């Protein structure tokens, strides 16, 4: 028994040590790194390589050739597209720089005579910035096809979401490694390059929040909230509906939407059954509120986590730029929900004493001590999220530190904690980053960005409208996480090229469109599917058509309000 306890404590300590170690690594990784060091008195030929949209071309092979075409120096372009060719002690004139990179046309740059003379004199010389032109080859079409297959597999639900993304990543490796010897142009990227596309900030932020959620969900807070909403409303439906929606929304702003709906739905079903109304009249507004209010924070939706990390948008930025608009959207959604469900809700009657007793029993906090600890740690995490930007603290580090603090303070069963971390979700994100990296690598994203850029021109207004509404409508049909991941580089390009977009408004447009658009269809958001599954398990089935009839007008209302808010905030 004692040995077993010791083993359990050791496992706890190991997990905590890993989390602390990862936190430190993330902190260190966020510090600036010194440039590559060279020998003193060494001179260099320096240049910068970008694609035709101005994005740096990374890992391009740069070779300095002499008159006879022999290589006399080699380098790789860095993350900013810059290459630094160390010059040999002795070299002839007529130098040429050859730049090669998969998915781009080879580039040959003749070094000016004046630059060559400077190099001969031992000076470091910087040549003009170079632009590489993309080529569309078989690799482009294969990567595009793989991405479409992954989207289709996720949308149809034929395979687990994670398996769909994993198949996509594996196919990319398969064609890159096995296909390349037979067909050179089919190559997409190698394993090392693919890892560069994985956003580890997202992975660790999601993981940290999962541990926090795993502890929160055992406390009974969700069930208590649902019952508290019922008690507060005293059976008045016009009060119960908005309170339930608000509680669900607030919980979704700090925890993930799926967990919130997993835990709110069963209790809501019981309240509705006790009141003699259809649970769908409460559940559909609840899940919509979850998708709408979740937009207001960095950790509220997976899409915001992706957007925040890619666009370097802080917790504060989301709060200050989106919360007022989200609240007005929520009010619009509440009025709409009451309007469509008023007849059903008005049929509510008083629950029988037996059912009431059962509800009260379920609506209790099961772990009050742990809930207090969660409350303090949660408060600390919010403070760190808020002040994090000013002290260069990444949200992922805050999440990991919060998770570690809870593990140390509460000491939960480590096996349960390991089970509670949804590793499949983490694998999904990693695989998705690789698949999206594939289409980035071959130039599909650049192609889309360039065409959208041509369409919107210099108009910020047109760009905002296009991003919000295209995101909203596409999020109804395809899963919004892969869609957002694919759109981020496009938004990055538009942010750099459209005048006025440097405020990062287009990232906020993507956030609003992708998350609120998820309300349009049952498959638009994972939380919708989970809610529908539980409702069906209680005998209340909702079809795709029924959800669309309720959800589509809700999207029009909430996204319209969101659009107006973003115009007020960023344009007027």
């Amino acid at each position, binding site marked *: 028994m004692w040995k077993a306890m010791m083993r359990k404590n050791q496992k706890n300590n190991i997990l905590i040590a890993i989390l602390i170690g990862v936190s430190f690594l993330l902190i260190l990784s966020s510090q600036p790194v010194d440039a590559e060091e060279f020998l003193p008195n060494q001179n260099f030929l320096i240049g910068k390589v970008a694609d035709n949209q101005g994005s740096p071309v990374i890992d391009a092979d740069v070779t300095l050739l002499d008159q006879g075409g022999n290589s006399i120096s080699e380098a790789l372009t860095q993350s900013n597209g810059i290459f630094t060719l160390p010059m040999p002690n002795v070299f002839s004139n007529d130098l040429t720089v050859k730049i090669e990179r998969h998915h781009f046309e080879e580039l040959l740059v003749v070094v000016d005579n004046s630059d060559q003379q400077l190099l001969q004199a031992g000076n470091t010389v910087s040549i003009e910035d170079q632009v590489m032109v993309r080529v569309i080859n078989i690799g482009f079409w294969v990567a595009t096809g793989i991405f479409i297959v992954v989207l289709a597999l996720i949308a149809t*639900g034929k*395979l*687990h*979401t*994670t398996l769909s993304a994993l198949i996509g990543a594996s196919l990319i490796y398969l064609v890159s490694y096995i296909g390349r010897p037979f067909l050179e142009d089919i190559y997409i990227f190698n394993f090392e390059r693919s890892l560069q596309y994985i956003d580890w900030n997202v992975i660790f932020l999601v993981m940290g929040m*999962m541990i926090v959620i*795993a502890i929160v*969900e*055992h406390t009974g807070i969700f069930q208590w909230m649902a019952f508290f909403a019922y008690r507060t409303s005293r059976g008045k439906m016009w009060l119960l509906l908005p309170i339930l929606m608000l509680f669900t929304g607030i919980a979704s702003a700090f925890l*993930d939407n*799926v*967990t919130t709906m*997993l*835990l709110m739905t*069963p209790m809501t*079903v*019981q309240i509705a*059954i*006790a009141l003699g109304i259809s649970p769908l009249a409460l559940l559909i507004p609840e899940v919509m509120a979850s998708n709408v209010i979740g937009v207001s924070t960095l950790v509220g939706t997976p899409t915001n986590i992706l957007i925040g990390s890619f666009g370097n948008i802080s917790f504060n930025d989301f709060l200050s730029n989106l919360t007022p608009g989200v609240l007005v959207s929520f009010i619009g959604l509440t009025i709409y929900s009451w309007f469509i469900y008023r007849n059903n809700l008005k049929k509510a009657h008083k629950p*029988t004493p*037996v*059912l009431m007793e*059962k509800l009260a029993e*379920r609506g209790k906090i099961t772990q009050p001590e742990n809930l207090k600890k969660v409350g303090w740690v949660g408060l600390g995490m919010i403070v760190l999220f808020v002040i994090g930007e000013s002290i260069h603290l990444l949200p992922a580090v805050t999440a990991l530190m919060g998770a570690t603090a809870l593990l140390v303070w509460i000491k939960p069963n480590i096996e*349960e904690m390991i*089970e*509670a971390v*949804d590793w*499949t*979700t983490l694998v*999904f994100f990693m695989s998705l980053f690789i698949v999206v990296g594939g289409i980035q690598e071959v130039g599909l994203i650049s192609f889309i960005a360039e065409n959208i850029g041509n369409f919107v021109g210099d108009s910020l207004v047109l760009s905002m409208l296009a991003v919000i509404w295209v995101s909203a409508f596409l999020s109804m049909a395809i899963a919004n996480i892969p869609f957002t991941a694919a759109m981020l580089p496009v938004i990055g390009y538009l942010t750099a090229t459209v005048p006025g977009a440097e405020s990062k408004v287009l990232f906020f447009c993507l956030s609003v469109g992708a998350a609120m658009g998820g309300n349009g269809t049952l498959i638009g958001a*994972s939380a919708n*599917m*989970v809610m529908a*599954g*539980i409702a*069906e*398990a*209680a*005998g*209340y*089935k909702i079809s795709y058509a029924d959800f669309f009839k309720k959800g589509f007008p809700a999207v029009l209302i909430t996204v319209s309000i969101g659009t107006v808010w973003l115009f007020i905030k960023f344009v007027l």
Partner: protein
Amino acid sequence: MAGIVCAIRGGPYSRPTIEKSISLSIEKGQKIFFLYIVNLEFLSNALHANIQIMEEELREMGEFILLLATESAKAKNVTAEGVIRKGKVIEEIVAQCKEVDADYILLGKPQMGQSGNVLNIGTMDAFADRIEEASGAKVVYVEGNDAEESKK
């Protein structure tokens, strides 16, 4: 001990099935076992789903649905018990029938166009044959809309 097993999911389509089981119980003088089966297959493709927590939550929800059914039976002086089982629907129905040596198993008749359900119009006869063969209980389908009995 003989009894009547009444498999329910809750919702409007279960009400006629519950009513029918109560009237059958009064007629045969047998105890009703209201059965709710926790099936988590709908979470198989979902991300972020804590299966352990979800099972607990669905059990609680099932208990509530069963409480509603047993209260209806008690109101008519019929002896009834709520039973929760976890697993595949057919296997659990058969197991419950065997466990209580049931004479009857009452099921809601699937609706036209209903999808995503274990039972549908096309498979209900085969389903009934399988249960009767495996458990010895007679399968009674109850219409969802008008609660008219529809024996196989």
